[in-house]
């Protein structure tokens, strides 16, 4: 029987089992479950939102019902809290075991396989079918935390080079501005561009779903694999559906992670017939316009600086009472974008 592991002793047993299976025990999870037999813990797994992870089963119980029992319990609990689809990263050797539970492989990377349970990606694509345009289309994936004149410039330049441009706004809420606000400001900021569509990236671009870190101990390698899986998912599932053959990025002077991501784009996307096109960023006062500068200006209450960095639609929001909480949050602490 699968039980939730709550006590310190049970969690220590879980840690031992996970680590002895060659995985990293991550403290970040919503629920940790296990199976006891004759007083010993024989199987363990965890769920963090819609990601199932840290599956570890003692050798004598592998190939039996333990995997299905763990997955059933995690999916039952996840469904009860509103998750509609679930993801698991596993080693290529273990992918078949998940496939036999009706998990669908989305990406085969030499070091990790990403599988989904719940049919999320076909549903996501079907829901956006009405946006598919003929011709040679392009894409940008943006966080827009918040939408700036720099984003506007990038999107305008990109839209001028393709028949249709899809702007995927990263859904993941790890930013000062919540997803709903970021999405709306992008929509308002590009409304006048006739060949641009703005989309929710859902779980399928630059999301927490791309975090196989726990079974790749080397964090540098894990980060690279994560980026590559994200791009393979884009190349394999998203781009062909929307007829995208070019992906645009801005030059990145500041952020090392973003720079590594653009390097990964050039490495991975050509394999799917997608060109990476780098565009010069818009400058204001000898420096590239960036969302970070906007947040800094907000923090310092430098309204004049703000006016030079964001379009009217964003400015109106930033100065409105609706943004009061965000301004307050930015004033009290700073974080990486």
């Amino acid at each position, binding site marked *: 029987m699968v039980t939730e592991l709550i006590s310190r002793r049970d969690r220590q047993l879980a840690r031992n089992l996970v680590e002895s299976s060659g995985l990293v025990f991550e403290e970040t999870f919503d629920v940790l479950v296990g199976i006891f037999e004759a007083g010993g813990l024989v199987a363990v797994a965890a769920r963090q939102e819609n990601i199932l992870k840290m599956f570890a089963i003692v050798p004598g119980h592998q190939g039996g019902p333990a995997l299905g029992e763990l*997955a*059933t319990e995690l*999916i039952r609990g996840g*469904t009860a809290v509103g998750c509609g689809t679930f993801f698991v990263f596993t080693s290529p050797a273990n992918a078949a075991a998940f496939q036999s539970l*009706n998990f669908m492989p989305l990406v085969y990377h030499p070091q990790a396989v990403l599988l989904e*349970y*719940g*049919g999320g990606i076909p549903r996501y694509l079907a829901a956006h079918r009405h946006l598919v345009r003929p011709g040679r289309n392009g894409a940008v994936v943006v966080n827009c935390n918040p939408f700036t004149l720099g984003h506007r410039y990038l999107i305008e330049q990109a839209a001028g080079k393709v028949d249709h441009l899809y702007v995927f706004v990263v859904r993941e809420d790890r930013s000062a501005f919540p997803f709903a606000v970021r999405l709306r400001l992008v929509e308002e900021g590009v409304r006048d561009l006739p060949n641009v569509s703005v989309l929710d990236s859902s779980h399928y671009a630059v999301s927490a779903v791309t975090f196989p870190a726990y079974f790749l101990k080397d964090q540098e390698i894990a980060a690279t694999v994560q980026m590559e899986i994200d791009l393979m998912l884009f190349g394999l599932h998203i781009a062909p559906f929307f007829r995208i053959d070019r992906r645009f990025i801005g030059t990145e002077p500041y952020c090392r992670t973003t720079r590594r991501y653009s390097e990964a784009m050039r490495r991975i996307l050509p394999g799917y017939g997608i060109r990476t096109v780098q565009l010069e960023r818009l400058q204001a006062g000898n420096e590239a316009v960036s969302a970070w500068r906007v947040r800094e200006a907000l923090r310092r209450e430098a309204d004049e600086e703000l006016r030079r960095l964001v379009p009217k639609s964003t400015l109106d929001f930033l100065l409105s009472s609706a943004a009061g909480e965000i301004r307050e949050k930015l004033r009290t602490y700073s974080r990486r974008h």
Partner: protein
Amino acid sequence: MEIRRKVQAGTMQSSDLMVFVEPAEGLTIEIESTVKRQFEHLIRARIETVLARFEVTAGSIRVTDRGALDYAIEARMEAALKRASEANP
């Protein structure tokens, strides 16, 4: 019968199935199965029979099957539909 909330029934064990039912405007049935190629039409027919018996005309029905026999499909469907018709958990 009306599907009033999102529910789940069944397990991922071999010879069983998981059923997910939630409110929707039309009636849709999605089936994943390890024996999809051979048996999807039979699984679908069995699900449709249960839906007809409960007079369900709207809802999203998702099933992942691992080779369940007819009576298991009926039992899991019935459990899911009865739960989905209750107003409160």
